[in-house]
């Protein structure tokens, strides 16, 4: 069956393989098996490519410690996320009210996307010390701009007729804001928040690469990699991924709760 037909024309064959979780699971297991096999056959040095079994061993034996390091890093990420996204929302509400201000500031905000904000970690360390607050600061800056830009877009996304409708009811500016602009902004806001969850975990870890205490994931990974204890580093990465996914899904749940009307792709 040509790919064209399979993609567009054929009715879905409800075989076992079509279920959404089956193929990824198969790939996951297959990749692990192949990895293990390669290590067994080629016998590379452990520090270069550790087998999954060794990683699992490291993970299970240090699970508690790793999870607590992860939690520390996670706190930095969440702290920065709350501050950055919170300020971004507030700034957006101010900026969206004034076209002149929006035209002036939005290009800066968009330009900040192309700046490696994480490179400012050393300055954050100088200001806030080597502890978690410097990482919180970097994450906050990284979350601020995307949130502000998306929220401004969302707040101004209402169709002119929808606004005219409100005017025809002689609605006050506050009513227009709460009943029209905020609900129409929500999809944009959540788009940004979902991106910010991964941005904050990444930001926290990379900021830690610039310096920090050992009971944080970033430092731990960097240190263990440096002394060639790669299984431990990989185990820490697994933990980092777990926290990252958990953060993302928390926001997805929040989105589903706050936007029950939103058609998600699968439902259309």
């Amino acid at each position: 069956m040509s790919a064209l037909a399979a993609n567009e024309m054929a009715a879905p064959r409800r075989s076992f393989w079509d279920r959404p979780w089956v193929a990824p699971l198969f790939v996951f297991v297959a990749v692990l098996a192949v990895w293990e096999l390669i290590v067994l056959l080629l016998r590379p040095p452990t520090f270069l490519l550790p087998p999954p079994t060794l990683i699992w061993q490291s993970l299970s034996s240090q699970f508690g410690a790793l999870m607590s390091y992860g939690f520390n890093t996670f706190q930095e990420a969440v702290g920065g996320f709350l501050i950055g996204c919170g300020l971004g929302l507030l700034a957006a509400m101010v900026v969206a009210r004034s076209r002149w201000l929006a035209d002036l500031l939005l290009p800066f905000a968009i330009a900040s996307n192309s700046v490696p904000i994480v490179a400012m970690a050393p300055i954050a360390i100088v200001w806030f010390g080597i502890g978690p607050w410097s990482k919180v600061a970097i994450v906050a800056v990284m979350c601020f701009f995307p949130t502000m830009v998306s929220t401004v877009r969302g707040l101004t996304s209402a169709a002119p007729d929808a606004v005219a409708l409100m005017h025809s009811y002689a609605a006050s500016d506050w009513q227009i804001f709460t009943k029209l602009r905020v609900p129409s902004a929500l999809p944009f806001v959540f788009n940004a928040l979902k991106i910010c969850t991964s941005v904050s975990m990444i930001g926290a870890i990379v900021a830690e690469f610039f310096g920090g205490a050992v009971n944080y994931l970033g430092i731990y990974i960097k240190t263990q990699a440096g002394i060639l204890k790669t299984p431990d580093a990989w185990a820490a990465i697994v933990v980092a991924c777990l926290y990252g996914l958990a953060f993302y899904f928390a926001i997805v749940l929040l989105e589903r709760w706050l936007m029950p009307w939103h058609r998600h792709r699968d439902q259309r």
Partner: protein
Amino acid sequence: MAEAPIIAIDKVSKIYGNANARTVALQDVSLTIQKGELVSLVGPSGCGKSTLLRLVADLDTPSQGAITINGHAPEQARKQREYGFVFQAPTLYDWRTVERNARLPLEVMGRPADTWQARLDKMLAMVGLRDFHHHYPWQLSGGMQQRASIARALSFDPAILLMDEPFGALDEFTRERMNMELLDIWETTHKTIIFVTHSIAEAVFLSSRIVVMTPRPGRIAATVAVDLPYPRNFETRESPRFFELVTQVRETLKEEFVGHA
């Protein structure tokens, strides 16, 4: 009847742009509308019919001239919620169910909750959406969405309805059905309706009076009184008199159909 007109439009002009590039959307338009009339504004794009409607609704201001509604300015009429506006696109809010969309004006106007429900139910039933209170807009067809927006315009019982090509996006069959439903509503509620359309047949079918407008600059070309008896129905559109009236309007707009020499 020597009653004062409910809406009086007096030498209204609307000009867009500046000294270098002007568009005269409306030039020196005057019109009076009596209480309880169903008046259509018909004409091709650019004739200013939608602009005129929005001036009446105080969604825009005239460059010259004056409009009075119920004896006062459009701004006051708007603030006192004396009309309901229906747009061409249903303009329902995605995040509200049909019922919550219909009660949007009531919420904005701060009307107390206990007076809402009975009236809302009645309006939604009147437009045929009795079983769809808790559906979201995306679950409804175009025609049903438009009916919901009409129910919304009626929910706070304004005396005047301003409708801007409300059925323009619908297919012909649905449109004819909606025309008849609108006439039912009009005959039951006796509201004053200004109906903007570019369909001549629709204008003739619905109105008691047709205001024909032409563009460049936007102005009133003619007024045609429609003497077809009410209630009007499916057979009305097949009657000779209907055809005569449509032809009469078409002749007035001949240049718009055929093009300029």
